[in-house]
């Protein structure tokens, strides 16, 4: 049952072995969705020291510590808004490519626990929205010891920034005279785009001239070369276009080929060819009730399905929402209702984000060598009538474990 975060020492009814070692966990599932398109029936998954050591077919639960109708890998949310609190963003400059959010994270905040209870075991965190280029994104586990050492999966996993009106909102000075640094900052969409271009041109030119290094240049160049992906928030079509054209301009100038990920691409369904052309991936925002989203974009129910059909890698996100109707699993349900096949829905919350974030060697699938992150379901995943009833993270049961049905 989804309850508290107590680290259970697993005195569970199905346990044959009265005291399983803390470092070993055996999970039995009638069906294990080990990866998109792969199902193992009557699977016995063994986790040792936090890593999966084997996935085997077995006729009975045997001495499993946990039993469930279905199991998937721990879910991955790469659009996770850790906090809308603006102290995650260094606003004294428009471009803070080197800024990291990780040191400022409150690992005791309830938001992690809420995510964990929805089955989300890994998330991408990044400075949100108020800067043009906010800084570096990191991949974190949502549970375990509340220390960065224990939770960080990958630091500097991507460069993150935003197009559109959000980075410029609130920048227009109320009087005519500049009173603080906000008045130096862009006040329109074109100003925002200009900041992007200027930052990358400057970094590239400085590098070529051999100028003295400065903070952020290396990060920009890594993004420019495609070494790390660039996440650009762009809700509406006009901003998605801007992001794509910007990446194309960089390529056309011979500066580098970016790996573009459109974050919160609510209107990506309108012009999918543009995304196909630029090899961009999309992370979708949560489906709003009447289709209308932030930045006045319109997102239809079949958005994920359309992108999938066009061959665009698509990830889903709940934007750290909580409560009924706002969980990541429910986003997958809505996407399915919109026509996304089951396997693609599973991929959109596991393998696709794991791959884009460069952590697919650790999370996103159930296979030997992967982290022991599992979600236990009381029926087929991504159905209205089922829900996550247990969550295992690094081989430890953090949520539930009650498997009486």
């Amino acid at each position: 049952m989804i309850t508290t975060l107590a680290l259970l020492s697993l005195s569970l009814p199905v346990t044959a072995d009265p005291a399983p070692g803390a470092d070993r966990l055996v999970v039995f599932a009638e069906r294990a969705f080990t990866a998109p398109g792969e199902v193992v029936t009557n699977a016995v998954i063994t986790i040792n020291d936090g890593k999966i050591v084997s996935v085997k077919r077995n006729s009975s639960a045997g001495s499993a510590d946990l039993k469930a109708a279905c199991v998937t890998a721990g879910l991955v949310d790469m659009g996770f808004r850790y906090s809308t609190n603006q102290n995650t963003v260094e606003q004294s400059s428009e471009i803070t490519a080197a800024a990291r959010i990780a040191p400022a994270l409150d690992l005791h905040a309830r938001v992690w626990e809420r995510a964990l209870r929805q089955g989300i075991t890994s998330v991408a965190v990044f400075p949100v929205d108020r800067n043009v280029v906010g800084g570096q994104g990191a991949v974190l586990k949502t549970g375990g010891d509340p220390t960065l050492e224990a939770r960080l999966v990958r630091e500097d996993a991507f460069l993150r920034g935003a197009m559109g009106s959000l980075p410029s909102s609130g920048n227009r000075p109320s009087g005519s005279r500049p009173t603080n640094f906000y008045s130096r900052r862009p006040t329109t969409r074109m100003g925002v785009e200009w900041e992007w271009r200027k930052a990358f041109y400057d970094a590239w030119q400085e590098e070529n001239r051999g100028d003295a290094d400065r903070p952020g240049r290396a990060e920009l160049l890594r993004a420019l070369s495609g070494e790390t992906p660039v996440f650009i928030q762009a809700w509406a079509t006009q901003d998605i276009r801007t992001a794509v054209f910007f990446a194309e301009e960089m390529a056309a100038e011979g500066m580098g080929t970016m790996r573009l990920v459109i974050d919160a691409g609510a209107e990506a369904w309108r012009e999918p060819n543009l995304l196909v052309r630029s090899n961009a991936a999309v992370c979708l925002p949560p489906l709003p009730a009447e289709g209308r989203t932030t930045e006045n974009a319109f997102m239809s129910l079949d958005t994920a399905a359309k992108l999938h059909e066009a061959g665009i890698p698509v990830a889903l996100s709940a934007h750290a929402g909580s409560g009924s109707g706002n969980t990541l699993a429910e986003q997958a349900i809505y996407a399915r209702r919109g026509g996304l096949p089951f396997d693609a829905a599973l991929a959109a919350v596991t393998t696709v984000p794991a791959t884009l974030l460069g952590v697919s060697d650790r999370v996103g699938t159930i296979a030997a060598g992967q982290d022991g992150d599992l979600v236990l379901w009381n029926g087929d995943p991504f159905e209205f009538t089922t829900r996550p009833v247990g969550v295992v993270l690094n081989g430890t049961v953090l949520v539930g474990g009650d498997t009486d049905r």
Partner: protein
Amino acid sequence: MRKLSIRTPLLLAAFIAGAGWSAAATPLGDAVVIHAKEVIVRPGEVLEDVDVLVIDGVIRRVEAGIEVPEGARELSGAVVCAGMIDPWSVLGLQSTETTFTSPSPATRSADSFDPFGQEFQKKQALESGVTSVRVQAARRALVSGLSSVMSLAPTSDEDLVVQSEVALGASIGLTNPSSGGSTFTRGSDGSFAVIETGPTPMDPFERISQVDKIASLLDTGLSYRIAQNEHIHDLAEWNEAIAEKVKELEKDFKKAKKDRDKEIEEAKEKGKEFKEERYKEDKAPKAPKFDADKEIFARVANGETPLVIEVHRVAEIRNLLEATADFGRLRMVIAGGTEAAAFADELAERNIPVIVNPLTHGAGAFDEFDGHDPTLAGILAEAGVDVLIGTGGHATGATRDLSLMAALAAGGGMEEDDAFAAITSVPARIFNLTDRGTIEFGKQADLLILDGQPLSTTTTVKAVLVGGRVVVEPKE
């Protein structure tokens, strides 16, 4: 589905045997005997090596060597004393209820009390020995409505409210009606917390005018009551007159009938239309229009319901004492009274008790108060004022620390027995809670079993009985 672990709140309720109506460790009707080294029957009066016998939730005997009735529960402890009463609390009230500024006088604080919420705070208060609280909502309003005494360990829904209309609350100079006294702040985990910034300073003249408003409300109440009494009198008179009139009419009826027939006859003859004779009588006196608010002030001005008025500064206390001097039946209680030391003798003479909070929020919290905090209770008691100690309408959790507040008053100069009385027998007496506050024959068995003196820091409450039920079980 049946196993969803949502039951923690209920487990908790069962533990304090309060919020869960049904949980009762010792069913009513059972007997309990407590063997005690020391029983504080009332403040200052201690019996040594005696037993306390409780039957049907009522104290029956307190003496040495009581024979234990069959089936009685036996408990023992070093010190037994009466359950404490916080005479000025906001425990169980939601913050919106305490900060509300425009209640009608007839509202009851019992309606602001959440029997389902703040379980943990209630449990802590009970475990620290507080068994009843007088709660006052809308503290900062000029007239705060009726306060209520609540039980912290009720056996039933009805049991929860000990008295719903125990006193009318009021306050002088606490807040500027146009500005709130609290603000929200965002915690590190994104949660909101309410920060009390303290009342906004009010113009001194405005504060004094609040005294006048209270006085004129009392006047209104008095006139209303007078009008009501007059009406009763007038109505009786009218009824009497009408009864006589009816007798007269009955007597004259035959004649009247005859006359009438005659007149009809005559009219017919003359070809005129018959006209009934006009009947006239005095109209019945009209009852004064019912007014729930005036009703309350009538009761207060007439001394049927006490007025608890929070007032702090010298100027306001002086004006208040002057303005209320003519209301001979008014039973006034001052709450707070930060600067009341200056009026100790007058308060004693006029029998005006004071509810002291020995630890207000520092000198800077209320504008220009000179906090006598820890010494005030002692000064007033010395002068002969009835002193009650309450936790003072700040925080819901404060009631837990009531005994520490009393201890602080003792440290500030009050006699320790008086300080203990200020949280037991005196509140019971002032607020007419005749069935509690001391350990005497016939009183409700709200008892604490302690391992030391009640006001000591190092004393722990071993067990708590409310109405003879063990609601905090002895540990070990």
